[in-house]
């Protein structure tokens, strides 16, 4: 199946499009299309709604998209290898619950933050061991750990909310850089995005990640240890999700076991809309990040226009289906036109 889709959004290993059909170019440049769409939506929202362009709204927008943005980084790499991690939102919740529990039990916040991230890495290592070490299907494994981690979060904290975190920390997370509307949080987001982007798009490790996703067997014969890569990607995903959990608890001044529930679906939605193939091997980080911004902007702008929640969900759903459907429809159109050409040539 995956080799069939070789002309969907092109990663470095995918063959470059051969001729200049317009459809093909669009397909090869899904991320260009999604970035253009994002920019158009941003411009459109600023024109139609004066409130959208205000500096406070910009701050809110960035704060709202931060957790999805963060988790989408490792998720993109994992989906490119042909696996998935649905336990990320539960890891976020468990990390928040652990944070609250430790805070209640007199730990220092400076100690809690690295411990939470370490906990996330360990949870990720469990996923990685089950998927890469034992070779179990990642969908099944991470649905299991989705329930397991969320359950542990409730065991730790029950329905309690821990909220009295030090003001210096909570106000840093919600604050902005000086008098600009740029949230402090944007700085680590940009740094991490650059790190992940460079790794995936410009290093040998990145090429190996694409190769593993395109064909695990071929990659193995090429001497690439796909399982090792996958294991460490899960560890990183766990650590990043836990970091998102810490930031979440600080942003809302509320460490709760149900923090971020359902977030994994938004992340996977953004990654797929960003042009990453669910079968692995293709997609670029830039497209994914544009998709994260696109989805958050649509939500923010439509809310300002008083569009109902239900309509919002429908818009997101339609976008996703289009994103998954379009490359396949275009492929069918193209192969049939090629076939016609071939018949005419006879």
């Amino acid at each position, binding site marked *: 199946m995956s080799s069939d889709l070789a002309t969907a959004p092109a990663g470095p290993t995918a063959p470059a499009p051969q001729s200049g059909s317009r459809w093909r170019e669009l397909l090869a440049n899904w991320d260009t299309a999604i970035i253009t769409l994002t920019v158009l939506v941003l411009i459109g929202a600023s024109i139609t709604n004066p409130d959208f362009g205000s500096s406070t709204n910009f701050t809110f927008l960035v704060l709202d998209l931060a957790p999805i943005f963060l988790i989408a980084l490792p998720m993109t790499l994992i989906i490119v290898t042909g696996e998935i991690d649905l336990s990320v939102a539960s890891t976020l919740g468990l990390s928040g619950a652990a944070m609250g529990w430790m805070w209640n039990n007199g730990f220092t916040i*400076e100690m809690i933050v690295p411990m939470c991230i370490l906990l996330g890495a360990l949870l990720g290592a469990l996923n990685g061991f089950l998927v890469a070490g034992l070779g179990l299907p990642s969908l099944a494994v991470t649905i299991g750990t989705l329930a397991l981690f969320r359950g542990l979060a409730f065991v730790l904290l029950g329905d309690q*909310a821990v909220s009295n975190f030090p*003001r210096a920390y909570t106000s840093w997370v919600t604050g902005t850089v000086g008098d600009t509307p740029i949230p402090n949080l944007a700085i680590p987001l940009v740094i991490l995005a650059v790190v992940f982007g460079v790794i995936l798009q410009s290093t040998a490790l990145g090429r190996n990640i694409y190769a593993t996703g395109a064909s695990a067997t071929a990659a193995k014969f090429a001497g690439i240890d796909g399982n090792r890569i996958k294991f460490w990607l899960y560890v990183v995903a766990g650590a990043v999700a836990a970091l998102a959990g810490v930031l979440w608890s600080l942003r809302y001044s509320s460490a709760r076991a149900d923090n971020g529930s359902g977030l994994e679906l938004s992340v996977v939605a953004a990654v797929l809309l960003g042009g990453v193939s669910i079968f692995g091997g293709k997609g670029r980080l830039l497209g994914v990040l544009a998709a994260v911004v696109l989805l958050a902007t649509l939500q923010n702008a439509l809310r300002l226009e008083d569009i109902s929640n239900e309509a919002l969900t429908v818009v997101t759903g339609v976008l996703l289906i289009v994103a998954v459907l379009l490359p396949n429809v275009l492929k069918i159109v193209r192969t049939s036109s090629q076939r016609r050409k071939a018949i005419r040539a006879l």
Partner: protein
Amino acid sequence: MSRFSRRLAPLAGVAALSLVLTACVGTTQDSASDSSDSGSRATGTANPDAPITEGLKVAFLPKQLNNPYSDIEVAGGETAVGEFGGEYKLVGPNDASASSQVSYINTLIQQNQDVIGIAANDPNAVCPSLNQARDAGIKVVTFDSDASKDCRDLFINQATTEGVGEALAKMTSDQIGGSGKIAILSATPNATNQNAWIEVLKEQLASNPEYANIELVTTVYGNDDDQKSFQETQGLLQTYPDLKAIVSPTTVGIAAAARYISSSSYKDNIVLTGLGTPNQMREYVKDGTVKQFALWDPTDIGYLAAYAGAALASGQITGAEGETFTAGELGEYTIGADGELVLGPPTVFDAANIDQYDF
């Protein structure tokens, strides 16, 4: 497998080291208790005779949209906003999670609302945003579930915990003639409201000589799930054949229990009471399964919240204790301690009055 553990060892080592290093100096809960700089903001002077400003923009933000109970609450708010000629708006998340309300508050700030009426999903998660709203001049009234008291102007409390607990004890005692075994069918073991009411009920049974012959045998939990509540009722009646009454302080629980009892042989031999809505309980009151139950009128909660918000936004009140204002048809209210307004004692419903209510 060993490959993995070899690789994890240095990671754990680094982590342990960083823990030791950070453990020496740091901020703990005890050293960080300086976080209350925005106390009560009841500033300025109230003018009790000020008219309600025309065209106030009043937005309601319930815990979750499309929840039957909060739909009724906000409908009361809509009625009130209509009465004083304001602009009513309803927004809210599809899920009742802790942080889902925050982006809605942010939107309402952008839209320059005058009043936000909110049932907080989490008392603290909404606080920074609510305080931003108040900095922008928006009056914040919580109803149903309070936010932390330093980030709202007023809280509309449906009833005091004591009021509900005492009503439960009295209804039960009246109906079983003051003696016998009773059991409680509650929601979840950690439902804050339910537990507080049950606590008062237990205190009443222990301290009030009138209830000396009433014995509470057990508390079971239906998790606010219809089927589970139904099964728990069945279980109670089988386990305690001499049970006189079941008290269910949850609308889901009492309705499920009534459904089971009405179709079983226990009908007429067991008293069922608690908190329920008239529409859910009407048929069971009419067929005699239930004689009495209680609840506040949720319509009045939203109605009072809207008037309280309008009174704040119009300068009739500032939110200080002891100030009074008139809430339309509900009459005059006085602000209590900590900016709390109590709607009143719960209404007791029975065959004589149930048809006057539709919610």
